[in-house]
């Protein structure tokens, strides 16, 4: 399938339901993300936020996350309150920390 079809805009998110809603930046997607998402109870919907000073643009990040088998759909924007989900996982703080670590490693080269 064309996994880009899993990416939807915020305007189309109202009324959707998900077993687990994950909120994060995914800037960029790292191996740890893949493991963490796969371990969650699915189907997983990802709400993709914009970090300060993004590395990759939102569309690029959304398509990468959508290509993962454990992800049912990716909503570009803050879908908290729009998508009904019994479980919300906030990855934003962890995302910022792993992004800083990646940038530091690249700068060290």
């Amino acid at each position, binding site marked *: 399938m064309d996994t880009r079809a899993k990416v939807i805009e915020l305007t189309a998110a109202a009324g959707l339901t998900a077993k687990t809603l994950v909120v994060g930046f995914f800037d*960029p997607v790292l191996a740890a993300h893949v493991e963490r998402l796969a371990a969650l109870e699915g189907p997983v919907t990802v709400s993709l936020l914009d970090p300060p000073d993004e590395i*990759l643009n939102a569309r*690029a990040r959304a*398509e*990468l996350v959508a*290509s993962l088998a454990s992800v049912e759909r990716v909503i570009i924007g803050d879908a908290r309150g729009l998508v009904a989900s019994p479980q919300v996982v906030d990855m934003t703080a962890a995302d910022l920390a792993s992004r800083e670590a990646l940038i530091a490693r*690249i700068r060290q080269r």
Partner: protein
Amino acid sequence: MGLVHRALRIPGRILGIETSCDETAAAVVESGGRILSSTVASQLETHGKYGGVVPELASREHLRAIVPVVREAMTRAGLGWQDLSAIAVTEGPGLAGALLVGLTYAKSLSLATGLPLIGVNHLEGHIHAAVLESAPELPALALVVSGGHTHLFEVSEGWHYRLLGRTRDDAAGEAFDKVAKLLGFGYPGGPLIDALAPYGRPAAFANEFTVPRIKGAAQDYSFSGWKTAVLRWTEQRDLRAEIAARQALFARRPRATLDEWRAATPPETLDLLASFQHAVVTELLRRATRAAEAMDARSMIVTGGVACNAELRRAAAALRQGYPVYFPEAKLSTDNAVMIAAAAFPKLARREFADLTLRPQPNLQLAQ
């Protein structure tokens, strides 16, 4: 009259896939040289703000683009998998993570469709890009010059290669980009220097760029000293304000026009750019013609991203050494997949197929 090689005559259709650096590309080529489709997704905007290719981002962008790019190449060619003879993919040299994306996809396609897989050396691809629709007399001297490579090869009958010379440090295209960055121009700086150089005087600072003497290998290049020469030149003058103004222009307008860049570049700096470019072009062709003479070449091939440089094209075309000089057309000079498919045809004819153990080889050599 030397032997004439005609890759054009080899029947079949090959899907080529190239992901060695910062372009995701796919193409379908028929009968050795007829282009049925060619799709290239560039990552320039992703890497531009960092002043160079960031490998971690390149592999992610390849991952995102590979499926749509291959699909588009097949759709534009109007073909299905059953119409193909083989799948060719760049195995190296290049960035490991970037190569891995194209290789994994090509291997999966080969496994799913049953089509044979052909591993292609990126440098051999560049050489084939210049001779797609022509049949150069061999042996030929090939100058492969880009942001990652500066090599001189002897190309003999049957597409056999011998390395005659290479850069000891920076590739020529890398030197262009680094000099541009040093002076506050955007990335990639090579095309911009090419566009600005005609407004300067190439003799003005010729003395800054003396040809380095390299012990032991008369046909090797070295460009890193000239980057230092430019740095020294800027330090001797107070260019901080001028450089900062250009950096600000690039930050504000990543796609500034030539007129905007000219307005931000005083005549003396234009003279430096012209002198630098002239020195690089002269040096590239000096060693290439010397190598061609030594091997009694019947033609010369100039290829790779820097083959887009207008002064290099003009100077090479005007060599008049008694043999023809071949260039790829501009859009086939930079990375593309047409060249990968084209280079795979002689391997298809020889049934030189790879199996699923094919791995990325970041430091793959074309010849010793």
